[in-house]
């Protein structure tokens, strides 16, 4: 029997101040895309070989992107402690992406925690139909904690 799980209930939270408890972003709408993680490749095939060889480099992450129903005075959206405030201050704060798997595995079992900076916020106000929304991009930096364990630490 499949153990597939619906994606609804995935939440993103941010430290409004540092250090502080995580505050879940209000009204996360749309699909949430966890940052893609990849290693860049360099081909190292020597002339001596008859087949290719590759070396994979350090892990790189795509930006964390999400959207919200924009609430102008919500502390996670606003120009003070919210994403606009963080963008202006260019501050490093903690971000947490928690999947619905926490209902099965418990808190921490299905979450990513990392430091990052708000890189862009694009707000939209439809003229005819629809609600105000904002698209947010966060650039994560440094090691993460995934499912309670460090992911991507220092090179020893």
């Amino acid at each position: 029997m499949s153990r597939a799980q619906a994606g609804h209930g995935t939440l993103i939270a941010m430290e409004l101040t540092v250090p502080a408890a995580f505050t879940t972003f209000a009204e996360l709408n749309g699909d949430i895309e966890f940052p893609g993680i990849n290693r860049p490749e360099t081909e190292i095939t020597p002339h001596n070989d008859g087949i290719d060889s590759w070396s994979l480099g350090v892990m790189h992450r795509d930006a964390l992107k999400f959207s919200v129903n924009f609430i102008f005075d919500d502390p996670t959206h606003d120009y003070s402690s919210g994403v606009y405030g963080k963008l202006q201050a260019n501050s490093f704060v903690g971000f947490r992406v928690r999947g619905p798997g926490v209902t099965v595995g418990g808190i921490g079992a299905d979450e990513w925690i990392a430091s990052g900076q708000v890189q862009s916020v694009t707000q939209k106000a439809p003229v005819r139909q629809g609600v105000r929304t904002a698209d947010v991009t966060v650039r994560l930096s440094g090691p993460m904690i995934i499912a309670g364990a460090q992911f991507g630490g220092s090179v020893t």
Partner: protein
Amino acid sequence: MFHCIECIAAQPPFAYDIDTEGRAMFSINFNILSDDIPTQYPDDVLIYLAGLSLAQPAVNSFIGSQAVIPTGAGPFALFVPTSGYPTLETQDSSETKNVYVGLQIVVRGASFIAASNRANAIWSALDGIRNRNIPGE
């Protein structure tokens, strides 16, 4: 009362039929987005229009498919809930979902012009309402 995020008419009123008494029938179809579940929204919309002197409940305006429309010249309006769009959900299900409901208002009258005028007045009053409580603040 419900909080209306937006009330958008699908199109201007259009004449689509005549009833058994030969009265011209106009249909206006709205999609209403609310941040709660507006269980009595046809009533609320009717009360709102009554406040604008565009409807008289149980006199020239009625609610639901079981309403008995009086005989006579009218124009009479019937408010019928219809299907809307899928709910706009947020990831946090503990937050209120934004619910799309539909409302069809059918205006019928012995005079094509009178029915058209009333349908257009209702359309103008409701189309584009945003970010307010219905029927009142």
